[in-house]
């Protein structure tokens, strides 16, 4: 029996989430092997947020996020080859190996980057939405950030301007309960992030990211508000990261029991089970997972085999035209 369009769609979302999960697991391995340097922030556990939200977009819509950006980049269409090559610091990477884990950019897919300063990209995303309104191009901007960004000034200034100017943007707070090692209870006086929207006269939403279709539907409502009415929304998506803040973080600030409890709600398992129950055979799911595996292995091989950038790549990427010295 041919699966319905809905089921076909869900299996596509599952494939993307599974791809991100495998990319991140292999990133952790690459870090342990010394192929990836610097900071590495994994998206494992949060896949349903990025995949569900971006699934609600058109290809010409824009996305910006923080340094936890691999999953968002993949969901927006960045090829795994460009991502791994960037992580390995190779010139074939999306940013020629000059950006690294925290700075995944893919102009072709309107992935406008991962940014390393908490909250600093929020005004940028507002500017992108500003440009869409200025040009009347009908595009929507999604701006992802963690709940840790809610306390910084750029969050307030960005949301305040987006609401004042009625811009087509959706602010997505991926609340994974910890800003680095500090739990919500010790970082915010009011745990409900979405309440901040009230002060700006902005629409808000708040939900758990267990079900990727629910994320797609709820973000879709905000995207429609942005596209049809040029109005911003603040959406708080409750999620959980299964790994530490970065690779150097063993996450001793939370208990194993808490982690195990959250793992029971793993959006990947949930989606796989749903697919299975709705008639996608184990054989088909295996084939899908194998194709992801092949894609990831190909990307890693491509990254391994790629050349490093050279000093000659630096000046032309610093200035357009002659170097200003």
């Amino acid at each position: 029996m041919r699966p319905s369009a809905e089921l076909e769609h869900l299996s596509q979302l599952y494939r993307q989430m599974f791809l991100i999960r495998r990319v991140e697991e292999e990133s952790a391995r690459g870090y342990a092997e010394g192929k990836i340097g610097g900071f590495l922030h994994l998206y494992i556990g949060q896949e349903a947020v990025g995949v569900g939200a971006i699934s609600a977009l058109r290809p010409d819509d824009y996305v910006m996020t923080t340094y936890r950006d691999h999953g968002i980049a993949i969901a927006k269409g960045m090829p795994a080859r460009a991502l791994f090559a960037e992580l390995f610091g190779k010139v074939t990477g999306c940013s020629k190996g000059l950006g690294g884990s925290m700075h995944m950019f893919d102009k072709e897919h309107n992935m406008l980057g991962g940014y390393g300063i908490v909250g600093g990209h929020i005004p940028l995303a507002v500017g992108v939405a500003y440009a869409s309104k200025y040009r009347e191009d009908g595009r929507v901007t999604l701006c992802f950030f963690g709940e840790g960004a809610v306390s910084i000034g750029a969050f307030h200034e960005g949301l305040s301007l987006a609401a004042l100017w009625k811009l087509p943007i959706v602010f997505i707070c991926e609340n994974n309960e910890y800003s680095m090692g500090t739990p919500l209870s010790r970082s915010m006086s009011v745990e409900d992030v979405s309440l901040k929207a009230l002060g700006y006269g902005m629409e808000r939403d708040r939900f758990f990211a267990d079900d990727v279709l629910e994320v797609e539907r709820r973000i879709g409502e905000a995207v429609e508000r942005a596209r049809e009415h040029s109005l911003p929304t603040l959406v708080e998506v409750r999620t959980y990261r299964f790994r530490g803040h970065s690779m150097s973080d063993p996450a001793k600030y939370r208990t194993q029991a808490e982690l195990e409890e959250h793992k029971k709600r793993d959006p990947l398992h949930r989606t796989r089970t749903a697919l299975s129950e709705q008639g996608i055979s184990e054989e088909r799911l295996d084939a899908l997972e194998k194709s992801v595996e092949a894609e990831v292995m190909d990307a890693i091989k491509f990254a391994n085999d790629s050349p490093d950038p050279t000093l000659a790549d630096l000046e032309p990427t610093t200035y357009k035209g002659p170097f200003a010295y």
Partner: protein
Amino acid sequence: MERDGRVFLMGEEVGHYQGAYKVSEGLLEKFGAKRVIDTPIAEAGFAGVGVGAAMVGLRPIVEFMTWNFSAVAFDQILNNAAKVRQMSGGQLECPIVFRGPNASARQVGSQHSHAMEHFYATVPGLKVVAPAFPADAKGLLKAAIRDDNPVLVMESETLYSVKGEVPEGDQVVELGKAQVVRAGKDVTLVAYSRTTHVALEAAAVLEKEGISAEVIDLRSLRPLDEGTLVASVERTHRMVVVHEGWPYGGVGAEVSDRVQRLAFDALDAPILRVSTLDVPMPYSAKLELACMPQADRVVATVKRLMARGRA
């Protein structure tokens, strides 16, 4: 703005109020609220909005009521405007202009008197210009708007009342070109923005005392016009750099380093600097004048320089 619909002006009081210093007077009426946008007091917010809009193809002009207030938007300029091109491997560009009055005004105290160019000129990815004359204010601003990189235009509140010839029409002053504004043979005074006028005043005093000073108006601080500096010091063999801002590091130190490195054999004496004194700017009118670089301090410095090195 007439030439390119992608250009818009954004900042505090730029529209209905006609600009805190009337720089944008009449623009709202001419171009409308879509292209002349009043912002709330949110420098980090609207500086970032400008950078984001530039990344996707608009060409914003962001006004800071004064460059002092850019301090709260420093992250947007340093980490986003200057770096997005490299972080994206050259995929994204940031054709934005940040402009506003810089350095001292009159008795506005320590928090409103910063010479911010010294911070920004150190940052690769940015260009920084500082005009001293009306014609350059027009020509450099036009060049800045047409440049595909972030350009910071440092004006001066004390120069807004200076009058001068301004060429009609599409006059552009190329970024990175200094100008010899007074020829001389005994010493080169290097300045920009307000201190160009201080240097000219000092040169007039020196002339009466038989010392012929050449005055270079840098106009552009990054890129810096090494050629004009070296050619001048090869004629005069002495150099004094005059600028506002503190003596630790900065544009004067950069000029000194480059000139001694590129033209060591031409120098008869060390390069000296006349800067703002190394303290936060005081409110007291007398003390403020004493802190700022003045013609008499330039004259005294040149005389010290002339007294040595004629071996």
